[in-house]
């Protein structure tokens, strides 16, 4: 039983790591770190709502995170993007607090959604994570070149006829998908840390796209596996090790890399 639960959390963590490594690469390229934080956490009331009213978890989380992506994309045309993101995030967190306060085991649920309860992943969670992850990877494959181009240079992308607004929405949807896959099982913190730390280290030491992407995924996997091992050895939360490893990777990347070298095409 214990071994079974641990194995499924291992698989779930690995899928989320691959997904976060791939999407994190674009997050870092576009400098959209705030979106990578706000979309997973902004889908927090969805999980609460699904639990309270017995809705389908995946559909609710997906609807909320894609809605979040659309609202942030639309609002950022009127006001500065960071302000729009911050306001969306606090509104969603407040709504999540309201919905969760109607539930039994309120504090535990809040803790789980923020910091993850990776040791409690069920087979149903696993199917959901794998399904959403597959959709996100297909989307990345389809939009790979335009995403890369618009991430590297908005001007270049405009010259090449890449629609910037559409690409922005595609990108935010990708982050939302990763968020939907990750949030219920591993929590918002893990999803966010895994999107930022490994990808930023990869970006700083490697200036070609494909090897950078591969390195980002490898570092994310290594982070999750190491964190799971340490967590099961100490009993401390997985999120702690992932968060600290993310900062460690960033610092190592800055020390080893040339800062922010222009990406070679």
């Amino acid at each position: 039983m214990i071994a079974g639960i641990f194995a499924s959390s291992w698989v779930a963590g690995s899928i989320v790591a691959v997904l976060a490594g791939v999407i994190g690469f674009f997050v870092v390229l576009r400098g959209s770190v705030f979106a990578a934080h706000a979309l997973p956490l902004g889908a927090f009331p969805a999980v609460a709502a699904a639990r309270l009213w017995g809705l389908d978890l995946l559909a609710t989380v997906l609807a909320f995170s894609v809605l979040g992506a659309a609202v942030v994309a639309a609002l950022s045309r009127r006001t500065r993007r960071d302000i729009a993101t911050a306001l969306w995030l606090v509104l969603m967190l407040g709504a999540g607090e309201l919905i969760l306060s109607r539930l039994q085991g309120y504090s535990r649920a809040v803790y789980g959604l923020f910091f993850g309860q990776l040791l409690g992943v069920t087979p149903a969670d696993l199917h959901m994570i794998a399904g959403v992850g597959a959709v996100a990877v297909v989307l990345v494959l389809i939009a790979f070149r335009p995403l890369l181009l618009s991430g590297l240079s908005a001007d270049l992308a405009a010259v090449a006829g890449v629609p910037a607004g559409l690409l922005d929405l595609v990108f935010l949807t990708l982050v939302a998908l990763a968020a939907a896959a990750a949030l219920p099982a591993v929590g918002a913190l893990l999803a966010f840390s895994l999107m930022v730390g490994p990808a930023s280290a990869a970006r700083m030491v490697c200036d070609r796209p494909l090897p950078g992407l591969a390195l980002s995924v490898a570092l994310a996997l290594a982070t999750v596996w190491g964190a799971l091992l340490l967590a099961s050895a100490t009993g401390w939360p997985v999120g702690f090790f992932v968060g600290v490893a993310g900062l460690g990777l960033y610092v190592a990347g800055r020390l080893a890399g040339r800062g922010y070298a222009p990406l070679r095409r």
Partner: protein
Amino acid sequence: MLGLLPVGFLDSAPVQHALVIGGFAAVVAALVGVPTLLRGQAFVTDALAHVSSAGGALAPLIGINALGGFVLMSLAAALGLEAAPPRQRAERDLQTGAVFGAGLGVAALFLYLDVTLPGGSGNAVGVLFGSVFLLGASDILPAALAGGAALALLALYLRPMLLASLDPDLAAVQGVRLRRVGLAHLAALTLAIGLAAMTVGAVLSTALLVAPAAAALVLTDRPARALMLAAGLGLAGMWGGILMAWQSYVWTAGHAWPASFCIVAVLIGLNLAATLGRGLWRLGRRGAA
């Protein structure tokens, strides 16, 4: 005017404390929020606010006041960010993100230790979402000290802060010490975050800093007016939210809504009203012309 308030509202001691401490925290946060948004630091604010939850979780472990914990941890994160500024501006968000993740990880650990260690409170909800009605008379002095220090920093450095945010080169030419001004701003920011976290919790404290200031900056371009408007909107949001939470006890037949949710809802509502009102006014003026 006061006769419109529900019976017993102003007589309740928790409400009195909430109105006084919460109102003061909202005004300080809104005032600090204006230069913060002008400097383009909404993300840093949110990051420091979330990281402060680690301090809130640490406070019961080492036996200090929650406000001290919030300020301590967000100040540590702010100094970490300031100690090694990235070579390029574009990299600033990455650095913030990395510190953010680590801070939340530490929060996860401390909250876990709160539950498992003897003497810990294990109050994840209290740290993350706060409860303005749990503030007491003993919170007034620390809140006044923190808020007073934040306001003093703001008063001393407001002009160079605004100048540095609008045009760093011009500020440097005029002899503004950018680094000292930046540090003063971060110190004021962490104090304001601590105060806000004490009233609405660490992760919602962003609302008190960003929502009123953003609304004020939509309504006016002048810094002095923006500061006054932000303070007014922040106070209105806090008091309106407290009133809404009190009334929700009646609306929901005893299952009152969390006060922090109500405060955030009113603040966002005011922000939307300001944005919409400004848009309509512009439309109307264009129609008249």
